[in-house]
């Protein structure tokens, strides 16, 4: 099996303790870092996403696959950053003000990174002003807003309103998600997309950038 395929399978088969060696071996064999990313990590996380969506694997497997992928990405990033590497798109993502839940958001971040997106993770309890500032100061295609609580969900709408008020409504496309969020809510508040789960969020990001 070629080294890139081995890396891809290591992500799916949870070989968290072998991935660093596999990645270094591939680089030593002069496999380009971009090829390891695009043909190893991206397809690996894509399989993980599909299996998760189909109910074949669960949170422990997704989290460990994401960690395995990140271990490889940490080795590749210094090399990729020296090259003019094309990315799938630039995304900033955060959990809205008043909400400090981050597990769902972190899975989305991992899935996005594993699919070749550049991700700015703004963390939890993010002020509306901070979202506005990040959109204004960065060349982003997508902003992801997450809320786990019914009580914090209105902050998603507040953030979208604040972007519009700042004249940034057209500068970025907003994807929303989190346990209480629904497609109907996303439509109601004027979001550009809704991610029912991490896989859907990645697909939506890809679709919005393509259109």
């Amino acid at each position, binding site marked *: 099996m070629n080294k890139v395929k081995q890396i891809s399978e290591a992500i799916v088969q949870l070989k968290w303790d072998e991935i660093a060696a596999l990645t270094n071996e591939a680089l030593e064999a002069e496999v380009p870092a971009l090829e390891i990313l695009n043909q190893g990590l991206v397809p690996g996380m894509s399989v993980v996403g599909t299996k998760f969506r189909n*109910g074949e694997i*669960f949170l*422990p497997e997704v989290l460990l696959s994401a960690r395995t992928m990140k271990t490889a990405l940490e080795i590749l990033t210094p090399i990729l950053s020296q090259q003019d590497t094309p990315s799938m798109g630039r995304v900033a993502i955060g959990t809205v003000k008043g909400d400090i839940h981050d597990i769902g958001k972190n899975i989305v971040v991992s899935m996005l990174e594993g699919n070749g997106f550049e991700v700015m993770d703004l963390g939890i309890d993010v002020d509306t002003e901070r979202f506005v500032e990040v959109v204004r100061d960065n060349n982003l295609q997508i902003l992801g807003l997450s809320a786990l609580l*019914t*009580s914090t969900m209105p902050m998603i709408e507040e953030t979208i309103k604040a972007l519009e008020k700042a004249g940034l409504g057209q500068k970025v496309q907003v994807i929303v998600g989190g*346990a*209480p969020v629904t497609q109907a809510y996303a439509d109601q508040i004027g979001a550009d997309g809704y991610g029912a789960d991490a896989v859907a969020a990645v697909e939506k990001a890809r679709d919005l950038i393509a259109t």
Partner: protein
Amino acid sequence: MAKYTNAERVFQALERKQPDRIPHFELTIDRKIINKILAGASYEEFIEHMDWDALVHRDRDFLKEEVLSESPRTTRNEWGAVKRYTQEISPIPIEAPIKSEKDLANYKPPDPDEEHRFKQIRRWVKRYKGERAIVAVATDHNSITSDILGFSERLMAFYTNPELVLRVHQIVLDYQLRYINNAITAGAEIIFIVGDWAYKNGPMFSLEHMDKFVFPPFRAMVQEAKKHGVYVMKHTDGNCWSFLDGIVEAGVDCFHPIDPMADMDIGEAKQKYGDELCLMGNVNCATTLSFGTVEEVRQETKEVIRKAGLGGGLIVSSSNSIHSAVKPENYVEMVRTIREYGRYPLDIKSLS
């Protein structure tokens, strides 16, 4: 029909029998909602005002906390978990005490025999025994171990260090068995085992992991309570269809909250498990109680009664808790509707 005490009403429902009317209480209600309905009322005053059929003693309210920061309020509890408070009733864990084998070697769990944990139950026994049912919440090993090891770290350790997970589970279980024993000795009549095992699409873990890490300590908790002849309830959010059989087989009397946000339909639950389980739920607190109109709440409450009330074995409540975003008038309407339409024998025509 004979008039029941509030407590008898709950016990009848837990035995899947038909009392005089459908009982009501909540696992949790936010202090802000209590204040909006009955300003300044104590929990007990509120329960009497709303005529809840049971009082709920929450174990986590009696864990001592060391304040690490006031703004934002951040504390370390007796399990060693660092938590941050938000506007919600339950603080969120932000740092776990056990990150390595070395941390485990030095780890000291809380003492389950400390009297302050059970004082409230003893007080309620004196005041309410025989009138209102007394429920003691026991947070399950799944939630506590997540706090001790970190939610994500623990789940990954199912693969990377399963022995560590099992050892921490045993520490937690030793505590819980003593806690349950002490709560029952103090006078608790129902043990409510609380901890989430699922999210909206399905279980958090594979059935293989549930058999290894989740069910064995859970069954031990249920058996400890059953040994003393008390009732056992189980709460978990999420879509639970794939493992609900395991909860029934463990000997649980009642399942809560049949999460409608996770495609859990209470009519289907009644059809499948009505002979084995009392059901508690499931007026939607993520949508209807928070954003709906009073009329929508009324309709949904009637629907819950219509789908799952026949023959008894139903406690109507919210689909999780009365959290801070629930409209107080909607909560009051839900209770009013339970009282109006939940009298046995049910008037099915009026419920459609």
